[in-house]
């Protein structure tokens, strides 16, 4: 496109002010993003519905109708105590969301705090925080969970805090260098030359620019929380044993996998789909909210998938 004639650069298609919600449309147009969004919406909707209605009371034990195969009225069958698996799954969605969102919030706060401390402060504070983060990385999430659970008893909070802390540290570890990189980029200096204070610079330039890495990390963290809930419940450090939770259900039903293999499929499927949905939603969000990835232009601008560097 040339600047030959003044005012000759109209590009009608892009000149309408971009809608605030345009990214949603872009997200929807990505097949992975659409899948992730649908899955997450379904899980959230299920959790809300389960708050008011489930086919059966998920805690209602009915020994005489235990281990019913899928059928009517127990659509997905019943478990060892005769509880309705569908109702348990529906009610478990709430637990899952609680854990995912809770861990997400904790991880966000810890991650941002540690990353900011590790990137924006005086040199010695910065370096000490970096070393500290490295040490915390070496603490497996599970050990944190076991310790917390031993102190306060097994509960969802254990999972939330453990995964939140564990993943917060990971987020800090990944976000910090990103923040440092952005900090040194010219547009931050340009912001300073325009008169921005450090805080304004942080809000306007730094945080939005580390957001892609952050979103992917966060969605991954939430997915890990769902998986960790399953793993911790299996080890007996997770949700209270009578709470409806997919992880617990999986742990409980897997004891009978050779007898009632079908029943184990449901919680396993629910977890896998949710985790997949969260991961894809994260990838999709990163892509959809990044203006540089939308109508790609210019050489070498292949959509770059940033995969988080941390796997817990």
């Amino acid at each position, binding site marked *: 496109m040339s*600047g030959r004639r003044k005012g000759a*650069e109209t590009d009608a298609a892009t*000149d309408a002010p971009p809608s605030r919600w345009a990214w949603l449309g872009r997200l929807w147009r990505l097949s992975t993003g659409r899948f992730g969004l649908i899955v997450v919406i379904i899980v959230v909707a299920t959790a809300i519905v389960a708050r008011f209605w489930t086919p059966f009371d998920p805690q209602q034990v009915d020994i005489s109708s235990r281990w019913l195969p899928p059928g009517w009225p127990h659509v997905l069958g019943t478990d060892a105590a005769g509880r309705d698996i569908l109702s348990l799954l529906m009610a478990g969605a709430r637990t899952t969301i609680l854990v995912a969102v809770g861990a997400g919030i904790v991880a966000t706060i810890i991650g941002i705090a540690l990353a900011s401390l590790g990137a924006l402060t005086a040199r010695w504070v910065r370096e000490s925080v970096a070393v500290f983060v490295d040490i915390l990385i070496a603490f497996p999430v599970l050990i944190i969970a076991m310790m917390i659970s031993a102190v306060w008893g097994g509960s969802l909070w254990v999972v939330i805090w453990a995964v939140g802390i564990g993943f917060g540290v990971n987020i800090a570890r990944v976000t910090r260098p990103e923040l440092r990189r952005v900090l040194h980029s010219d*547009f931050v200096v340009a912001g300073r*030359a*325009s008169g921005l204070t450090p805080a304004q610079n942080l809000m*306007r330039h730094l945080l939005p620019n580390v957001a892609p890495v952050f979103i992917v990390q966060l969605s991954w963290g939430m997915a890990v929380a769902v998986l960790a809930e399953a793993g911790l419940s299996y080890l007996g450090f997770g949700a209270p044993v009578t709470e409806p939770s997919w992880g617990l259900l999986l742990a409980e039903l897997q004891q009978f996998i050779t007898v009632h293999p079908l029943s184990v499929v449901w919680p396993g499927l629910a977890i896998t789909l949710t985790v997949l949905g969260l991961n894809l939603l994260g990838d999709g969000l990163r892509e959809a909210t990044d203006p540089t990835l939308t109508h790609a232009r210019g050489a070498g601008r292949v959509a770059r998938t940033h995969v988080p560097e941390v796997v817990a």
Partner: protein
Amino acid sequence: MSEFLVRARGLTRRYPTPETRLFGPRVYTTGLEDADLDVRAGSAVGIIGESGSGKSTLVRLLLALDAPTEGTVEFDGRPVDASARARSLHWLRRRTGIVFQDPYSSLDPRMSVGRIVGEPLWALGIEGDRRARVREVLEDVGLEAAMANRFPHEFSGGQRQRIALARAIVHRPELLVGDEPLSALDVTVRAQILELLGELRARDGLTMLLVSHDIGVVQSLCDEVVVMKDGRIVEEGPTEKVLLQPQVSYTRRLLASIPVIDPGTV
């Protein structure tokens, strides 16, 4: 207003090098060494010199975007302290504007052009119809006002440079500092921008400090030239004098290598 808008004395900037270790002695490279510079109000000063000679460093120090290791800077008679809080430098920001060397990396990729250009107005709390002013300045630099809704990556290199220029002048500064503001433009656009800068000088009495490796540009725009090499100012003076009767051998070599359109060589 004093005669000199900018006065720098003994400016020195040393950078710690990577060889510096946690417990070792610090090792420094010199970015700028003992530079004195005066910029008369209303004048246009060009800075030329080879790559790495300290041109950008000098510019950053003058605008308090970096603190000098030694030396002082005064703007309009008032000392500039780069380590002061951002708000206490607002007076300086209000009166200066800068175009960075690499236009693309100086534009936040996640912000629309409108927000980028309007940022100084917002940050300095300048009242008035900001949106109208942004539109106006975009048109001044030869862009469509409607482009305010697009993002930097949607523009060509030349357009980006014009966006950066628009941001530098949106708040009507007295001093415009350009770090190679024309390098990415193709010849056509370059001519246009030169015209605009000339207009701003004539109309608003804008003072200019231009870093460039295109000596043709300096020749056509500036009344004074500073030549730099290895972090030092080796020669300075009125444009005509420096470019036509260079005193220093380095300047002479520089001038001799500039290609010219010469259909005869073919």
